[in-house]
């Protein structure tokens, strides 16, 4: 199957061995979008890699930026001012909304609904992307975070616009769920499809909603408490069966929790600097050493492992891509199901090939 993905997630091929319509063996084939991102990172300065991280998982540029900035801050020992921390959380959670909306929309496309749920999701996503554009200059390739802070300070009007969207969003989610969640076709196609045991999920290093759908309570926002996530009151939704329906439902629930975080962040955001005065972006030469920084991206743990030898370019620049590792168990989930279900299972893992192939 492929290399054109059935719902245009990217170029991805699956070698599938079939018995009738049942899958007996499945091998994913990657690399069609391979740009050797890591080599690029080793041959450019630290700041110059920042716009390239936008292009890893192009739906979640803000969280990629954040993970990279966090790793460099660990490597160089920079502090982040309070306002920038709040801004990062606002951007990160808005990105989570954008990503989950895309996922749910595309999942329904994989199920065969021709575009109606996707366009409803995109209608709301567009409003958030407009905000990103108004702030950072670009809808998706935001290039917003800097080492030790953020690049642009939002105006009060911009924050009010976010508040308006956050206030409206639950209404949209209710409408969306009325339209979809009770739908009998959805239930028939997703319940019990592609179940995954928590033991295998942990051993295979799954992270993010795919892991939590199996009932494992592991959210890096709660575990690492990076940034200032310990100040926020939110729940981590968990699934029960680890099947496709749980993965879908988990994203809807996560969006509701995200709105809670956003409301608190928008209520509490202080005035102040957005970038640490000591931090330096251009011509950065961190001391020799290494650092691994990770955050809970919308798709799972996104981390950057950097080794510095004291020069202006990282000696080693490694991306830990959540989509790539989450694909490890694709075969285990698909064996015994039919071809049509494999498409839905792949959709529910939520991959972006820009990140898988790098």
């Amino acid at each position, binding site marked *: 199957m492929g290399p054109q993905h059935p719902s245009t997630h990217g170029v991805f091929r699956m070698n599938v061995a079939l018995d009738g319509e049942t899958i007996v063996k499945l091998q994913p084939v990657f690399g069609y979008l391979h740009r050797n991102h*890591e080599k690029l990172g080793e041959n450019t300065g630290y700041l110059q890699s920042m716009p390239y991280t936008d292009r890893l998982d192009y739906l979640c540029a803000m969280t990629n930026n954040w993970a990279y900035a966090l790793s460099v801050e660990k490597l160089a020992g920079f502090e982040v001012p309070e306002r920038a921390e709040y801004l990062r959380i606002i951007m990160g959670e808005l990105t989570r909304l954008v990503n989950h909306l895309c996922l749910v929309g595309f999942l329904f496309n994989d199920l065969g609904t021709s575009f109606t749920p996707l366009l409803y999701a995109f209608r709301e996503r567009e409003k958030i992307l407009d905000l990103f554009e108004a702030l950072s200059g670009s809808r998706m390739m935001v290039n917003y975070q800097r080492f030790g802070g953020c690049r642009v300070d939002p105006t009060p009007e911009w924050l009010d616009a976010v508040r308006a969207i956050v206030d409206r969003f639950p209404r949209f989610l209710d409408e969306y769920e009325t339209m979809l969640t009770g739908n009998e076709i959805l239930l028939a196609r997703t319940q019990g499809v592609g179940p995954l045991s928590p033991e295998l999920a942990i*051993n295979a*290093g799954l992270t993010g909603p795919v892991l939590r759908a199996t009932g494992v309570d592991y959210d890096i926002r709660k*575990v690492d408490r990076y940034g200032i996530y310990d100040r926020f009151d939110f729940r981590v939704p968990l699934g029960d069966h680890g099947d496709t329906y749980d993965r879908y439902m988990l994203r809807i629930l996560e969006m509701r929790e995200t709105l809670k975080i956003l409301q608190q962040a928008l209520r509490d955001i202080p005035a102040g600097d957005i970038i640490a005065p000591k931090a330096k972006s251009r011509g950065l030469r961190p001391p020799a050493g*290494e650092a691994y920084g990770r955050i809970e991206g919308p798709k799972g743990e996104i981390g950057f492992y950097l080794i510095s030898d004291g020069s202006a370019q990282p000696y080693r620049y490694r991306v830990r891509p959540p989509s790539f590792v989450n694909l490890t168990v694709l075969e285990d989930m698909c064996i015994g199901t039919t071809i049509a279900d494999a498409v839905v299972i792949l959709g529910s893992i939520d991959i972006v090939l820009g990140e898988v192939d790098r």
Partner: protein
Amino acid sequence: MSSTAELLDHLRARFPDATLELVENPGPAAQHGLRLDHTSARLIATYLREDPAWQLDYCSNVSGVDWIDREETEKVTTTVTAEDGSTAEKVEKVTRTIPGYFEVVYHLYSMARKTSEPVILRLRTANRTDDTVVPSLTPVWRSCEFQEREVYDLYGVSFTDHPDLRRILMWDEFKDHPMRKDYVEPDDYEYEPTPHATVLERAAKHYPPASPAEEGSQS
């Protein structure tokens, strides 16, 4: 430091035969590593996963690192006894070449204990040329499967007992390992008018100036 050092002491007591080494990280992050030898690596990894005190059930990140040959200059002080019996200290600069190697770095966390600092395991190959083998940890953590394949693909490190060691990002017919520091890009230049000096140099190499005889035959 403390937790890695503690872990090291604990492992030394538990596995007296294994050769273990603390790899210090001088940077502000202070994430220190633990170097394992090939024979006991899988044993120790299984122990770390199963032992209730550690429960490192989650292997987050596997990265290859290419450490090229590097030179280290050291000041060596020797005492020279002169003919008259007096001794003088002589300082000499000695340059040694430390041969390069590949390193595979594993970042481990515990999902059961919810640890937020990684435990870092490091495996090293003997050299960068012919003996680039390390034991695979995929039998211990499934999450290493694709990432070790990636290290094999981009660095050329072979993993023994890996269930499916094939290229993953580059195509199967590809020969070299592009993430190695000494990788030379292939000459796949395509004509494109650009003012960049580096591109022009490549263009000149790719399209060597035609000899007059050839030009004559073309016209």
